[in-house]
């Protein structure tokens, strides 16, 4: 087997036995179970009922939890492995640095995306069993959105892990990155705009560069194509991209951010001390 795939498999096996994976899977599985238990499929919000109502809530909750979860668990386990001597031993074996780094990313991607996706898939299968109509377009787009979001934050997490030498520093840096993105969500931007210190275009521009805001807006766009809830900033976004264009942007931009961060992480990893 290819060394990259061997490394990916090794990382998956290692992650499946880690406590973070158990908690992570329980959180997302638990969210879906709770949403069903509270009868969310029977409630109606903004005309949404059935599984679409559940998916909208699920994606909103996932957006709040997944980024910080992926960032913290990635930097903790990667920097922790390095500190504990796992890198020293495994990198003494004849595996290339590219196979090791990208194999690790691939393995980790599978372990962070799968529980989120499986929870959503379980909701769909349960709905089919209960003869609830499944909004397939929404399901596929949200799957793409989750895949892009997981990749984006995994890439950022790997970059932080390679730059920070210790677990504590890496964890602190990951938390700061997440907090910064959180600070620039639209509510804060709107506040800045109200104070009149920046032009709406600049504020919207910042929002469009913030992966957290991009996901949030894309998720909203699924049930509010005119982005009415966003207020005036919707004009700029829709003017720039159009409704369909924005949905594509919301998939491609985070993928690009994740890829750039991962490549930067790899270049830093190649040039630095490994253990």
């Amino acid at each position, binding site marked *: 087997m290819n060394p990259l795939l061997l490394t990916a498999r090794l990382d998956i*096996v290692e992650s499946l036995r880690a406590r973070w994976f158990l908690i992570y899977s329980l959180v997302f599985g638990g969210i879906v179970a709770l949403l069903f238990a509270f009868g969310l499929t029977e409630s109606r919000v903004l005309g949404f009922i059935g599984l679409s109502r559940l998916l909208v809530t699920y994606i909103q909750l996932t957006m709040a939890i997944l980024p910080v979860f992926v960032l913290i668990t990635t930097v903790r386990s990667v920097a922790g492995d390095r500190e504990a001597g796992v890198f*020293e031993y*495994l990198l003494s074996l004849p595996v290339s640095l590219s196979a090791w780094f990208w194999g690790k990313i691939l393995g980790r991607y599978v372990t962070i995306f799968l529980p989120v996706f499986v929870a959503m898939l379980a909701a769909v299968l349960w709905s089919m069993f209960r003869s609830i109509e499944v909004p397939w377009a929404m399901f596929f787009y949200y799957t793409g959105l989750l895949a892009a979001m997981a990749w984006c934050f995994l890439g950022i997490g790997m970059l932080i892990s390679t730059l920070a030498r210790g677990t504590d520093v890496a964890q602190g840096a990951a938390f700061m990155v997440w907090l910064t993105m959180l600070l620039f969500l639209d509510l804060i931007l709107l506040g800045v705009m109200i104070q009149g210190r920046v032009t709406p275009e600049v504020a919207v521009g910042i929002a469009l560069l913030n992966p957290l805001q991009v996901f949030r807006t894309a998720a909203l766009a699924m049930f509010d194509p005119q982005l009415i809830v966003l207020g005036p900033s919707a004009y700029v976004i829709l003017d720039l991209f159009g409704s369909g264009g924005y949905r594509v942007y919301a998939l491609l931009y985070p993928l690009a951010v994740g890829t750039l961060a991962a490549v930067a992480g790899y270049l830093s990893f190649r040039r630095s001390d*490994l*253990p």
Partner: protein
Amino acid sequence: MIRFTDVGKDFRKHRVLDAVNLEIVPGERIALIGSNGAGKTTLIRCLLGEYTHQGAVTIGGLAPRSARTQVLGKVGFVPQLPPPLKMPVGQLLAFAAAVCGTDAERMHALSRRLGLDVGSILARPFNRLSGGMKQKLLIAIALGRDTELLVMDEPAANLDPEARHIFFNLLAERLGSTTMIISSHRLDEVAPLVNRVVEMDTGRIVLDDRVAEESRFSTLFEVHLTLARADAAIARTLGSWQFADRRAGVEWHGTVSGADRLRFLGMVARYVGLLSRIEMHEVDAAVVLQ
């Protein structure tokens, strides 16, 4: 040929390796000794291509950092502290065998020779094994393939006397064909295994000397000890060497691997006030170990 040329390494402003120059010819067995912080582990990590550094390190003319797979394919490494891997033993062996291009069965067979029934622990997480089991497994991974260089950091520290003897036999089988670098805090731990001693202190090589060849470090010695009186401390220590109490804690009998003689005598020296008599006879290892 392994060559270190003006190798230097700094951590922040602290100089850990300072212009290290060293040449090791194929087949040499080096004891790399020195106290904590002397630079042994850093030197080993530079040799394995894990650290960036000033100067140059080459193994067979290739840099281990840039030609990783070529170089490390011929290098077996046993770390001092086993990594806390959660993966099952079978997975670790399969991964190591696959990336090293060897058959995992060779590693299984070597584990069995070291007294580790690997078949019964394949599904067990590596980090749940005892210290001795982990060490045996790491030795099996390093020796269970074709290597030209063995780099070992206190490799026998967690092994029981019998496993140590088998380990020394395994090394004896590779004499001449494999270069060995054995790192240790103490020379008496490794002296009988090596033909050259390199001592480091504060990042520099302070001693580089030849030692008398021990041509048969796979030999075994039968040892009989007589004490002036029974003593709990020496009884515990002799027990850890798997010695048998022949008479009320006064007469002790056991075997010591040839390569462990110096270490054993060093231990006995601590209790010299209790010692009345000591006898050591070389015996046929094959007969004794049966």
